[in-house]
């Protein structure tokens, strides 16, 4: 008997005793629903053929090809054809008839198979073909279990996407965000991590006091966040796998806006102190040593690292209104970065270091804009009145941010060119402060 099976039996006994309590906790955090609201200029027609199946049961435990198709569709750059319109459904390379796919105008074909190799062990194979050049572009075999099948499918989709577009896929990435439900004293704040398609939600922390500013560690294993439990702001670092958390900053006054350095060893954070002068500080997580980087009487906050770890970008209202500044991570004189408009805040750099996403006041509306750090152009990417918290995907090709739909906060993703858009909304409550994870560890 495997440990997994023993656990399942124990859990079912527990459920019999305690009824539906545990289940209800899961239902209360219904996953985000995705709606695609904008597509790319042209979408490439592709075919993701249903995968073959060899195993004990009538059908495979998971429809890998359906998820690959859904991923490619969601990217806004591909148009997977219906299974019904396929003239053939090959599962092996030798059976692919390129003329049949040519007739349908399909440019790429994905085939594959799932083979059961043990009680909970499978082998997933997939191949990608270029219909015009009549050649295999990609072919892999991956081990899987029922628990990893979804991730295996996302991984295959990521590889296919990169092969066809030259851009690494982000289907296997995750997102963390904060939800708030209820009003007044019964308001509940929840910190959640889910797959970027809204599936697979996990509650990381839940509190009657506000939770703010989650930040991923570069290895995706830890989250830093601010919690107001006990009516004071505290920065915690929580290890996802164990749920253990460490209080890393709980000084008098404000402890806010944490962000990990690219090497994961330091946190940039905002400290206010007793006299409430918010400044940018760097905390060494191993020595606990704090280095103050700014000392202006203005509000200095929302620090974030450049990908090379040498520079820290932050928001400061030293010039009157909030603008983005940068300072060397080892200290020095800050230099102003944004000049267009009266309000530019919450900077986040693209992982390739070329672009800066920020909250920009655009004719009375708070919107997400991207400043091109190479040519200095500012592009407004969102169209809401109250948009905030932009965060780049690890491939630098799209962003996620929070906007409002009626009275509720929802999330949106947008491609860096502004064309491809998706909305992610919870069935109930407010969703805010999304942060896109780094690339997954496969």
């Amino acid at each position, binding site marked *: 008997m495997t440990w997994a099976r023993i656990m399942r039996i124990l859990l079912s006994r527990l459920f019999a005793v305690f009824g539906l309590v545990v289940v209800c906790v899961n239902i209360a955090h219904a996953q985000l629903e995705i709606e695609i609201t904008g597509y790319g200029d042209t979408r490439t027609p592709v075919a993701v053929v249903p995968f073959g199946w060899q195993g004990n049961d009538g059908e495979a435990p998971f429809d890998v090809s359906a998820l690959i198709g859904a991923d490619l569709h969601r990217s806004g750059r591909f148009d997977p054809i219906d299974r019904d319109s396929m003239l053939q459904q090959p599962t092996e390379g030798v059976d692919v008839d390129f003329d049949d796919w040519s007739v349908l105008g399909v440019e790429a074909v994905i085939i594959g198979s799932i083979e059961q190799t043990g009680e909970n062990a499978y082998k997933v194979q997939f191949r990608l073909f270029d219909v015009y050049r009549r050649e295999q572009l990609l072919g892999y075999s991956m081990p899987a279990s029922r628990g990893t099948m979804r991730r295996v499918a996302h991984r295959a989709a990521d590889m296919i996407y990169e092969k066809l577009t030259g851009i690494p896929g982000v289907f296997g990435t995750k997102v963390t965000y904060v939800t708030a439900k209820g*009003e007044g004293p019964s*308001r509940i704040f929840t910190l959640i991590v889910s797959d970027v398609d809204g599936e697979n939600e996990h509650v990381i922390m839940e509190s009657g006091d*506000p939770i*703010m*500013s989650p930040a991923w560690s570069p290895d995706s294993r830890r989250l830093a966040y601010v919690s*107001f439990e006990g*009516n*004071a*702001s505290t920065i915690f670092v929580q290890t996802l796998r164990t749920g253990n958390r460490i209080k890393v900053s709980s000084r*008098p*006054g*404000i402890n*806010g*806006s944490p962000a990990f350095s690219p090497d994961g060893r330091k946190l940039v954070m*905002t400290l*206010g102190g*007793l*006299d*409430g002068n*918010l400044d940018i500080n760097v905390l060494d997580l191993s020595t606990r040593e704090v280095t103050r980087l700014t000392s202006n009487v203005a*509000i200095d*906050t*929302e620090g974030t690292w450049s990908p090379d770890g040498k520079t820290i970008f932050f*928001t400061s*209202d030293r010039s009157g209104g*909030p603008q983005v500044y940068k300072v060397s991570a080892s200290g020095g004189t800050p230099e102003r970065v944004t000049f267009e408009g009266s*309000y530019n*805040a*919450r900077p986040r750099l693209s992982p390739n270091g070329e672009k800066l996403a920020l*909250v920009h*006041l655009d004719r009375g509306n*708070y919107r997400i804009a991207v400043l091109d750090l190479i040519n200095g152009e500012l592009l407004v990417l969102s169209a809401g*009145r*109250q948009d*905030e*918290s932009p965060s780049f995907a690890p491939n630098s090709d799209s962003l996620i941010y929070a906007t*409002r739909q009626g*009275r509720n906060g929802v999330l949106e993703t947008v491609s860096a060119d502004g064309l491809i858009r998706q909305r992610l909304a919870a069935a109930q409550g407010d969703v*805010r*402060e999304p942060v896109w994870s780094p690339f997954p560890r496969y």
Partner: protein
Amino acid sequence: MTNSKLLAVALLALLLGACAAETIPDPEPTDATVDGSGVDTGAWDEEDIGDMESLDYDGQDVLAMVIYFDFDQSEIRPDDQATLERHATQLANDSGASVRLEGHADERGSREYNIGLGERRSQAVRKLLLIQGASTSQISTVSFGEERPAAFGSDEESYSQNRRVEIKYTN
């Protein structure tokens, strides 16, 4: 109705009751046939009540616990100066008392920057309390930014209720 008001009404009722209970004694019958007409007459006299005294409201004074601010401002409005002076006096007179100043902002703009704006407001209140005699050890500040709105609408009416500092006595 607050407890103190109830108490005042009860006190008043008691006073009125006391007055009503104090009946005026009947006049002494006189054997008066003064004018010899054979008709009986009676004398009638009444004791004076005495002077009235006005009563002050004996409940506790209502001292505002929330200070509101203008858009993008952390300046204390002139109307609120007196309120804060009275809080400062209370703190100065009772060294065991302490307050937590909770700063808030409206929802517009970036969340962590709004934490800064809320803190700027609680610091403005803190400074005034310190100038008026409270001591630093009696005051702590926290800013909730836009995270704990008092009103949930997205209009100026709600925003003006959310730009505030709440004064919470913790001791």
